C-alpha cells in the first residue's frame, strides 16, 4: 500500500513528472548512444586489427620477443599447430616467417616488415586478401610474388606488376636481396599498416634464406573474441616454454584504450546522471513542499518518519526508473539500428585510416555495461531523494498540518 501511495503520488502532477521523466530518458539515451558510438569505434578498431594482422592470439619463441630475429624460431612448430587445431573453438591457425627489411623500387626505398606466409592458412586468420584493390592476392604458380599496401606502393612509386627488391638479413647474418613482382595491392583501414607490411609466400623466403621450414609466429583465430580466455590460457599453460600472447598483450595500446574507454563511458554517463540529479532533487523538493500539510497529517495520525522517508525514496526511485527504462529502451533501439545499418563517416576517411577505423561506424555496447548503469540510476535516485526526504521528516506535524 505504501508503494501504491508512492506510485500514485508520482502522477499527482503529471506534467511535472513527465518533464523530469523525459529529461532522464533523453539524457540517458544520448549518454548511452554516445557511449555506444565510442565503444563501436573501439570495437571496429580492435576487430579490424584482429582481422587484418593480429588474430586472437599469437605464439612466438621467447627469444623472438627481444630481438625479433628470423633465427628466433618456434621449436617443433608443427606439433604446436597440431595441438592448437584440436581445440573446437579454433577456426584458423597460420604460421609466419617474420623479417624486418627494406623494400626498394627504382627510385626509393622503405623499411618494411616482411611476412612469409602460407597463402591458404593465412586466409583463415587474417583478412588482407579481402582488401585487394589492384591485382590479386597471390597467383598459383609464380615465384617471388609480393602483395603490398597501397600506401607503400604510393611511397615507392610503383603499381601492380612492378618489380620490387627486398633486402634483409639472412639466418647466417648475410644480407640477402630478392626481386619480387607485385601481384596485388591491398588497402586496409590502417594506412600505417599498409605502409609497413608486405606479404610474400613462405617458400620464396625459405628459398632465399636457404632454410628448411621454420616459423617465427603462429597466429590463431577463434570463432569469437569472447573465447580468447578459455582457449589461450590452456595453450599458454601447455606451451610454457613459448610466448603465448592474446590481442590485448600484442596491442597494449588497444587494451589500454579499451580500459580507458570503459572508465570514460562510466564517467560520461555519471556526469549526465549527476546533472539529472539536480533536476530530480528539484522535482521531488517541489513535490514535498506542495505536500507539507499532507506529511504533517501522515505523521500526526501515526506514520513513522522512517516510512515517510522510505515513501519519498520510493517515489524518486520510481520516477527515475521510469525515465531510466524509457531511456534504456530508446538507446537500445538506436544502438541496434545503427549497429546494423552503421553511421556513414566517409567524409573523414583520411583521418579515420590513421586510427585503423573503417568509414562506417557500427554502434555497440557490451551487455556488461548495463547492470552498473542500473545501479548508477538507483544511486542517483537515492541521492536525489535524500534532501527532500530529510526535509519532509524534519517537519513538525503540529505546524505542518496548518500549512496552506
Amino acid at each position, binding site marked *: 500500500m505504501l508503494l501504491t501511495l508512492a506510485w500514485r503520488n508520482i502522477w499527482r502532477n503529471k506534467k511535472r513528472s513527465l518533464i523530469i521523466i523525459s529529461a532522464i530518458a533523453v539524457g540517458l539515451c544520448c549518454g548511452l548512444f554516445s557511449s555506444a558510438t565510442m565503444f563501436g569505434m573501439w570495437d571496429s578498431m580492435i576487430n579490424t586489427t584482429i582481422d587484418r594482422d593480429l588474430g586472437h592470439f599469437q605464439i612466438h619463441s621467447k627469444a623472438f620477443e627481444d630481438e625479433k630475429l628470423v633465427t628466433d624460431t618456434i621449436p617443433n612448430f608443427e606439433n604446436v599447430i597440431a595441438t592448437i587445431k584440436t581445440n573446437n573453438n579454433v577456426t584458423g591457425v597460420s604460421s609466419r616467417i617474420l623479417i624486418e627489411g627494406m623494400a626498394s623500387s627504382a627510385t626509393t626505398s622503405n623499411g618494411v616488415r616482411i611476412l612469409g606466409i602460407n597463402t591458404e592458412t593465412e586466409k583463415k586468420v587474417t583478412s588482407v586478401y579481402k582488401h585487394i584493390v589492384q591485382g590479386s592476392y597471390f597467383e598459383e604458380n609464380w615465384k617471388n610474388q609480393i602483395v603490398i599496401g597501397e600506401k607503400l606502393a604510393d611511397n615507392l612509386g610503383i603499381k601492380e606488376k612492378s618489380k620490387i627488391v627486398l633486402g634483409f638479413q639472412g639466418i647466417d647474418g648475410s644480407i640477402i636481396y630478392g626481386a619480387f613482382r607485385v601481384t596485388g595491392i591491398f588497402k586496409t583501414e590502417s594506412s600505417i599498416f599498409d605502409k609497413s607490411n608486405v606479404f610474400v609466400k613462405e617458400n620464396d623466403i625459405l628459398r632465399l634464406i636457404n632454410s628448411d621450414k621454420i616459423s617465427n609466429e603462429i597466429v590463431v583465430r577463434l570463432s569469437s573474441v569472447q573465447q580468447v580466455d578459455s582457449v589461450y590460457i590452456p595453450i599458454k599453460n601447455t606451451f610454457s616454454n613459448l610466448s603465448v600472447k592474446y590481442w590485448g598483450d600484442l596491442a597494449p595500446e588497444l587494451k589500454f584504450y579499451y580500459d580507458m574507454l570503459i572508465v570514460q563511458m562510466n564517467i560520461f554517463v555519471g556526469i549526465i546522471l549527476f546533472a539529472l540529479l539536480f533536476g530530480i532533487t528539484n522535482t521531488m523538493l517541489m513535490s514535498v513542499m506542495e505536500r507539507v500539510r499532507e506529511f504533517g*497529517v501522515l505523521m500526526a495520525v501515526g*506514520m513513522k*518518519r522512517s516510512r515517510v522517508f522510505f515513501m519519498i525514496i520510493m517515489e524518486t526511485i520510481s520516477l527515475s526508473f521510469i525515465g531510466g527504462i524509457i531511456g534504456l529502451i530508446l538507446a537500445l533501439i538506436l544502438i541496434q539500428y545503427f549497429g546494423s545499418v552503421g553511421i556513414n563517416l566517409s567524409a573523414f576517411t583520411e583521418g579515420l585510416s590513421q586510427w585503423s577505423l573503417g568509414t562506417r561506424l557500427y554502434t555497440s555496447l557490451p551487455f556488461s555495461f548495463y547492470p552498473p548503469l542500473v545501479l548508477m540510476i538507483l544511486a542517483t535516485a537515492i541521492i536525489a531523494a535524500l534532501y527532500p526526504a530529510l526535509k519532509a521528516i524534519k517537519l513538525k506535524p503540529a505546524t505542518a498540518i496548518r500549512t496552506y
Partner: protein
Amino acid sequence: MVLIELNQVSKIYDETIIPIHAVDNVELKIEKGEFTAIVGPSGSGKTTMLNLIGGLDQPSDGKITVDGTDISTMKPDALINFRLHHIGFVFQAYNLIPVFTAKENVEFIMLLQNISKVEREKRAVEFLQAVGLQDRINSKPTELSGGQQQRVAVARALASTPSFVLADEPTANLDSVSAESLLDLMENLNQKHNMTFVFSTHDSRVIERAHRVITLRDGRIESDEIRNELAAQQK
C-alpha cells in the same frame, strides 16, 4: 475513569525573545466517554491545547497523562507510535490522502498498525458503513462532498480503535446540513460506543451539543461547564 490529565501544563513559544504563554498553567481532567468542546476566542490557546493533548506538541512545563501514559517527555518517534494506537484525529480541512479512495484512506491507518490486509479491508468497509458511506467506498476525496470527506476522516480516526478522538474545528468547512449530520454521527458514536470526543471549536452547533464546554482565555481555563446530565453522571 480519567482518560486525559493535564497537571500544571504550560506552553511558551519564542521563549528566548518575547515569551508567549499559549497555554498557562492549566489543570484539566477529561473522563472516558466525554463529549467535550474546548472553546475560546482566537489566540486563546485552543489549538495549542489540542496539540498538547494529541501529542503533536510537547509542553514547556507540566505533565500530560493520556490513557495512563505520561506523554509530556516522550521522544518524537515514541509519540508517533502512541498517537497511532491511542488517538484519532479529525481535522478542519479533512486532510484525506487525495490519491487514495475512501476505503484506502481508512485502511491506511490500519496498515500503519500492521493489521493484515484481509482484516483491514473488512474493518474499513465496516467503518465506512458506520458513517453512512457504504456506497462511496471506492470514491476518491475529490469525488466526495465536504461532509462526506469529513465522514471518511471520522471513519479513519475510528479505524485505529483509539482511546479518544480529537477534532479540530471539524464543522468549520461544512454547510449546516452536513455539519448537523456529522455531529449526529459523532454524538451517536459517543452514546452507543462510549467513544470520547474532544473538540476545539468556534461553532455554536458543536457547543450546543457538547456535554462539557471548557472556555479558554489567554491560555488559561476561564470556565469549565458541564451541561449534560448524562456526562455529569459519567463524571
